[in-house]
């Protein structure tokens, strides 16, 4: 049985290298695209520098957001240029070449602020290269578990029950990892840890279903009955998986979706490599746990031989 666990470890190492490679590839080959921009008052040398910006401010009180920026404030025919040093709802103070000028907000007819713009690298998007493969593997392994459950119901052979059970365990592991990485990404991208959004909700339900599968297994005494019930439940539960998978395409959802042909070559290649890597990792875990199952069986067998 050593071979199975060796195989598992080789698959794990290979999967690790591939996923890591894909992840690095997205940074250094595909680069980090900009998503939106940030602004500063001063100017700094940076690859992300996009140039100066000039913007008209609609209301004088908004000048409070631009303390430190250059501003051009117009009052009845009079234009004052300078750096904003202080601003409140009622007044704004400019430093115009050493002279401090205070203007009532009510007198301001128009104001233009200027500074520098920098591209904002979309670090959050990088999660796509591991969060999505992990989530996909959780669906695939769930499908494998449902397949073996069906096989079990047809044949009643214990090996299929074991395979379904181990596949379900791998599903649970990957679901948990998807949840963990997903929650961190939602915080980064949406600013909240959790949102009751269709994809998240259905995925959460899927988590509960997989947990329920193990609750069910633990509460049935008879081994064959346990296997049958668990198989039936995993088939029923699997009906929710496609709902979760396709729901972002059915109901308006905040969750990002890959658009058809929307990936550039470096991104696509990295993504596919990451998927293959994760699949190998999933396979490794599956093999490892199957090996453990077989060992347990051998122990049981040896015990009955010794005691019988």
């Amino acid at each position, binding site marked *: 049985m050593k071979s199975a666990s060796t195989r598992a470890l080789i698959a794990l190492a290979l999967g690790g290298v591939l996923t890591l490679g894909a992840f690095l590839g997205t940074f250094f080959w595909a680069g980090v695209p900009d998503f939106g921009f940030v602004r500063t*008052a001063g100017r700094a040398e*940076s690859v992300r520098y996009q140039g100066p910006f000039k913007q008209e401010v609609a209301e004088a009180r908004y000048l409070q957001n631009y303390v430190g920026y250059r501003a051009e404030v117009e009052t009845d025919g009079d234009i004052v240029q300078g750096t904003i040093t202080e601003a409140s709802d009622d007044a704004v103070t400019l430093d115009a070449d050493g002279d401090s000028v205070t203007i009532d907000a009510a007198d301001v007819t128009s104001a233009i602020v200027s500074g520098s713009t920098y591209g904002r690298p979309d670090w*959050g998007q990088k*999660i796509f290269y591991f969060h999505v493969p992990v989530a996909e593997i959780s669906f695939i392994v769930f499908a494998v578990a449902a397949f073996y459950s069906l096989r079990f119901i047809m044949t009643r052979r214990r090996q299929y029950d074991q395979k379904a059970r181990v596949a379900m365990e791998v599903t649970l592991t990957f679901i948990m990892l998807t949840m963990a990485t997903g929650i961190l990404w939602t915080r980064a991208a949406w600013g909240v840890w959790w949102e009751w959004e269709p994809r998240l909700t259905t995925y959460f339900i899927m988590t509960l279903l997989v947990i329920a599968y193990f609750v069910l297994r633990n509460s049935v005494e008879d081994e064959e009955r346990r296997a049958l019930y668990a198989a039936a439940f995993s088939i029923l539960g699997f009906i929710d998986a496609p709902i979760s998978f396709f729901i972002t395409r059915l109901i308006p959802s905040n969750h990002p979706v890959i658009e058809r042909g929307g990936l550039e070559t470096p991104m696509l290649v990295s993504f596919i490599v990451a998927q293959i890597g994760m699949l190998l990792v999933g396979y490794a875990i599956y093999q490892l746990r199957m090996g453990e199952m077989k060992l347990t069986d051998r*122990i049981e067998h040896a015990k009955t031989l010794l005691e019988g």
Partner: protein
Amino acid sequence: MDPTLKEVYSLVLTQWPLVAAAYALLWVGLMAYIGFALKRMNGLGKQVEVLEAALARRGKAE
């Protein structure tokens, strides 16, 4: 460091700690799971050896 550059970085880098944490969490989780599985398997392997040695002594075929 240039104060403006510092400001740029502080504005630009808000997301990456979370992404890095997610990546780290992923591998820590996987490794912990695999580590426990391997440890359990080691224990089981020892038990198998003991039992099968006992079987061999008693001359019972498996």
